[in-house]
């Protein structure tokens, strides 16, 4: 047992929290090679952080309306991402975690378990952002700007609040939509939350030119500045806390802890009910009707496509991926159709088209090729492996095709030849991405879709490179033809 756990009262809140943290760290353990790559990247980050800190040693970092507004915008962006992660982790807790049966069958208060789980979710959420922010913030704080020690407090407050928000949304969705729909809805809401600030920033800059050309945080910052939000009062608290104002930090942390206590109190019972609902059989028992001839198709491709299509549309993780991509595609498409005000940047659109299609085909191909639930069934069937792979690749491309055609249609309004070139390169980029998945396939359960890139770094890197290559060709062709 963990030495810390030995000192704590078994079954108590603190004991459960340490257990959750232990699970969170063990879930993150990767293979030795990935661990080394992670450590090298962290060391690099810390190195850059130290150099930045030395460079800023004598530069005063002071609060002011612009800084406070900037911190508010950054906090909003972080909260959006953190809530997405918290929502997905809450979904994992309710649907995929194997330990709730054990915990809830023990003589423990569901509320205590919920609070410990919330701490685990918050810890899991904060660690990614802490790894990105603290290697810079801590060296700068040590080397002359001690006020920045407020940033860890700000991160802790945001992650705790996001964990509460994520879990509350998930419990609400389960109660409202039922256990089956909640899985898919949770993923879609997660995607919408993840892209919320991005979308919001596009709306805010919608009147100006080129919606897709500004960063989300910058657009939000400009909007906040224009409306004088974040410069003072409560909205300046994140900025003040980040600069080490003890009162602001205490207010934010205290607020997050209050929210945590309120969530534990409010959802103590509904958490158990949501878990019980989530553990119910997830599929509706559909009323059997009519003949079954519609399910039988002539030819390997037709059978494979029907199977892959059904599995893909019934996969909540995929719904998340597609919605997220569509969210990022929407502003680009809006700009492409000229709604941003300025002239559409055809080569950039051609490049984006190939990149998005490559990512989609790669994702579909991973699900179809590596995420095969019954590989032995295909192995015992009287068909060559190559035929199966071809059918799977064709299925993946056919499913990505509607998304891959959005931007070429927009390009066709200004340059039909450029659109044709983009379609050709999009198809080539997509096919290459699919072939890379086939070549470097690593059989894995479909539920590990989100972590697939950590399983095959080479495939991920090659997909990006090939998409960039074909995207570059498409951009060049569109520029020359358009």
């Amino acid at each position, binding site marked *: 047992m963990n030495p810390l756990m030995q000192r704590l009262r078994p079954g108590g809140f603190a004991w459960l929290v340490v257990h959750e943290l232990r699970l969170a760290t063990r879930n993150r353990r990767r293979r030795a090679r990935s661990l080394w790559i992670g450590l090298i990247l962290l060391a690099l980050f810390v190195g850059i952080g130290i150099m930045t800190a030395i460079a800023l040693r004598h530069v005063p970092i002071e609060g002011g309306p612009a800084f406070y507004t900037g911190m508010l915008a950054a906090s909003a962006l972080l909260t959006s991402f953190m809530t997405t992660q918290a929502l997905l982790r809450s979904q994992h807790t309710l649907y995929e975690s194997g330990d709730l049966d054990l915990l809830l069958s023990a003589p423990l208060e569901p509320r205590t378990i919920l609070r410990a789980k919330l701490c685990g979710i918050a810890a899991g959420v904060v660690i990614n952002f802490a790894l990105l922010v603290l290697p810079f913030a801590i060296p700068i704080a040590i080397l002359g700007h001690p006020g920045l020690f407020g940033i860890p407090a700000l991160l802790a407050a945001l992650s705790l609040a996001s964990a509460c928000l994520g879990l509350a949304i998930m419990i609400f969705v389960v109660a409202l939509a039922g256990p089956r729909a909640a899985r898919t809805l949770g993923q879609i809401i997660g995607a919408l939350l993840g892209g919320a600030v991005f979308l919001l920033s596009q709306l805010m800059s919608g009147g100006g030119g080129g919606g897709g050309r500004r960063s989300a945080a910058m657009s939000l910052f400009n909007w906040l500045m224009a409306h004088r939000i974040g410069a003072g009062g409560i909205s300046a608290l994140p900025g003040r806390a980040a600069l080490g104002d003890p009162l602001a930090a205490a207010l934010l942390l205290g607020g997050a802890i209050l929210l945590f206590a309120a969530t534990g109190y409010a959802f103590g019972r509904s958490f158990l009910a949501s878990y019980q609902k989530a553990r119910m059989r997830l599929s*509706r028992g559909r009323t059997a009707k009519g003949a*079954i001839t519609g399910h039988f198709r002539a030819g390997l491709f037709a059978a494979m496509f029907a*199977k892959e299509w*059904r599995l893909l549309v019934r996969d909540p993780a995929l719904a998340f991926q597609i919605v997220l991509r569509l969210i990022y595609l929407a502003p680009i498409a809006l700009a492409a159709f000229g709604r941003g005000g300025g002239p559409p940047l055809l080569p950039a659109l051609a490049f984006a088209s190939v990149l998005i299609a490559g990512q989609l085909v790669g994702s579909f191909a991973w699900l179809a090729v590596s995420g095969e639930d019954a590989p032995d069934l295909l*192995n015992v069937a009287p068909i060559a492996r190559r035929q199966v792979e071809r059918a799977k690749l064709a299925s993946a491309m056919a499913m990505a095709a509607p998304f891959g055609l959005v931007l070429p249609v927009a390009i066709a309004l200004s340059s039909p030849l450029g659109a044709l070139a983009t379609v050709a390169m999009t198809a080539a980029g997509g096919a290459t991405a699919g072939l890379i998945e086939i070549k470097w396939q690593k059989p894995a359960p479909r539920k590990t879709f989100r972590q697939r890139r950590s399983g095959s770094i080479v495939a991920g890197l090659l997909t990006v490179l090939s998409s960039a290559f074909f995207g570059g060709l498409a951009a060049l062709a569109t520029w020359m033809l358009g």
Partner: protein
Amino acid sequence: MTETALRISGLSKRFDKPVITGLDLDVAAGELYALLGPNGAGKTTTLRMVTGLTRPDAGSIHIFGIDALADPLAAKAVTAWLPDEPMLYDKLSPSEYLGFVAGLWRIPPAEAAPEAERLLKWLELWESRDTRCETFSRGMKQKVALAGALIHRPRLLILDEPLTGLDAAMARAVKDALREAVNAGATVVVTTHILEVAERLADRIGIIGNGTLLAEGTLEELRAKAGSDEMTLEDAFIALTRAPQ
């Protein structure tokens, strides 16, 4: 002269240690053959080599005269494999699953659809034909997988522990299905640790141990080899597997 459905000669496979060492086995067409053996005897490895899922180190496998190592696709076309963990897609319904399996074996829809309907009704899955398999019990999943194995009318049906985890009614349904398949002309090779099943169901029984065939024959022949006509199959099995090689 009776046709040979499955002929295994000098089959060997080694993982960390030898698992199968020079196994010879003949199964006649139209018989139900039960392969028994202690845990780790190599039963599943043998069947996986027959179905083409594991490559043998040495030896040959012929299925209805087709060299399964030289022409695996032709051998697979007449064979069905049903492992103890059903090869299913949780997100597909039984109808959709059977449609997919029929596509893999390239059975024309006009033939496959009526056969699927017959199988689903026979295995009492018709009412659940449009429900996704993720909600099914283990027994129902096993029946869906069995329907998938039978939809392309295999001449050789190979099953690895098909009754594991099934309740009495489900086990009876699967046993009836196997006997029905044999009556319809198929050959069935089945591994089981439930000796009563082998005793009641099998035409011939093979006992495998230490990577080779220790004994083979009808129940009476096995009793005779074990040294007593009064023995149960369990007694004979223990006597034969514990006997010095």
